[in-house]
């Protein structure tokens, strides 16, 4: 049981870091993808969507190669931090960022594209500079998209299996996450424990979806209640 709690802790830590980092860096990226008229977006949009369609093991395989000290990136990391990326929490986090990126980016791009340009023009002429507009107009109007993006990212990271298996291994307290632990229990025919984890994940995911439903509906109702 204590082992399971540690595993749960690793999973939650991984999912939280992934979500927070993507929120910080993915949000401006999504804005650029949604609004820029540069030809670069035509390349970046399909490229960033790749993790949606590629088998996770393929991503995991290439990441594993990249992380290895024989490779430039892996070597540089080893030089800087003195430890290898492969089979470490940091490596797992980097993998999750790549794998979950589209789950964060896509809802945000949709949300950003839905903001009428007239509202941004209005904010500009009212004297709001870029950061001001971003925090007072753009973010509040993309609240639902942000909520969905964050939830999808979090739950997907919790459920990720293929990549973890390839680059993370199964080190308790470091890289062992719920989905791997579940696999282990099934392999060793420990169905009671497997049930506990599986049902727990089902329960959590359901809770997350209901929360989204409730929060997004609530906002809509607040805006239209005057009509009734």
């Amino acid at each position: 049981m204590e082992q399971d709690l540690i595993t749960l802790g690793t999973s939650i830590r991984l999912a939280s870091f992934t979500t927070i980092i993507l929120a910080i860096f993915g949000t401006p990226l999504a804005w650029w993808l949604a609004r820029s008229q540069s030809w670069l977006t035509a390349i970046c949009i399909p490229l960033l969507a790749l993790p949606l369609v590629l088998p996770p093991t393929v991503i995991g395989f290439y990441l594993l190669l990249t992380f290895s000290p024989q490779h430039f990136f892996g070597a540089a990391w080893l030089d800087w931090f003195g430890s290898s990326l492969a089979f470490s929490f940091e490596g797992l986090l980097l993998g999750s960022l790549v794998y979950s990126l589209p789950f964060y980016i896509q809802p945000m791009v949709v949300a950003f594209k839905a903001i009428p340009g007239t509202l941004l023009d209005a904010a500009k002429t009212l004297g709001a500079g870029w950061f001001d507009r971003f925090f007072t107009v753009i973010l509040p109007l993309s609240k639902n998209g942000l909520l969905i993006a964050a939830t999808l990212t979090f739950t997907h990271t919790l459920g990720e299996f293929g990549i973890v298996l390839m680059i993370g291994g199964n080190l308790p307290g470091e890289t062992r996450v719920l989905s791997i632990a579940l696999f282990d229990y099934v392999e060793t025919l420990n169905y009671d424990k497997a049930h506990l984890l599986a049902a727990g994940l089902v329960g959590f995911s359901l809770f997350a979806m209901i929360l989204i439903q409730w929060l997004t509906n609530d906002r809509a109702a607040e805006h239209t209640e005057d009509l009734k």
Partner: protein
Amino acid sequence: MSFLTAVLAVRQGTKTLLETPFELESQGVTALFGPSGAGKTTLLKALAGLIPNQYTQGSIIHSKYGSWQTEQFLLAPEKRGIGLVFQQQQLFPHLTIGENLRYAQKRQHDGPKLTFDEIVTIFGLGPLLARYPQALSGGESQRAALARALINAPRLLLMDEPLAALDWTARTEILNALNHIKSELQLPMVYVSHQWDEVIQLADQVQMMDKGKITRSDSLAALTTDIDFITQEQRLASAILMTQVSGHLPDEGLTELKLGDQTILVPMITLNPSTNVRLLIRMLDVSLVVEPVARSSILNTLACRVAHIKDHEGAALILLSCEGQFFNARITARSKRLLELKVGQPIFAQIKATALNSPGPQDG
């Protein structure tokens, strides 16, 4: 004195949307008048700085605040101190009307301003402050959008057909409010419209636009006495007469207005003598008589001359000249025959006149 001098070009690919010099007076309302696609909105956006660098060329120089645009430089819209109101979808949907107004108040520019409460009163927004924009009618939304732009204390107010989607009542309300603002604030305004009857109710200067160019720039007073100009289609339905308050008849609830040597009575307006007042005359509210009728429910009879006669959809349009100004009467072909009207003939016009809420400077 012009306070904004610009030479602007806007091109998208090989298409030229705008290529014109432009000057703006330091006070009063300048109407940009012209058909759809003439480049009016493009000019307004270029003035506001909302056209991206790669599409726009030229310069905008403000007599007080320096360059807004040069060949090398484009001042960001948020630094120009401009108020902008367009047709629709401009109130922030996540904020109530009150919060929308406060948003503008927090980010005030340094232009002339009224207090929050004054503006809320002028635009009748009191009952709407707690509502969200989605729950407002078209007219209410535009009132709120104008109020928000004004609370922001802009140095210049730009309006892009703000009344286009509204019905007659809502338009009248807003035009009255704008006339009120005009008399309260020394704020230069640009009003884009393709509706001549809106232009005459508000503008002091008119700049005509066509095919991306300013084709004519004149005072409203000059245009409304230009027969060639006002006898064109779509400028006939209503006209204005520039008058002055000469006195009040409080017992009868009336105000006397002077038009040359003649007097017009309108329902009491609270303005001092010799204040300028714009009278709106709709052609359907004018009837013609050969000699003054002694007893009539119509208060006002003006001595005029027939200046021009035009057949119009089975009826006749009679352009009347009165003390150097013009307005139209629309009469049936039969009436025209019975009255035996000829150009130059003296005639009497009975009018129902509406004084526009508030006066503006007559000659800019």
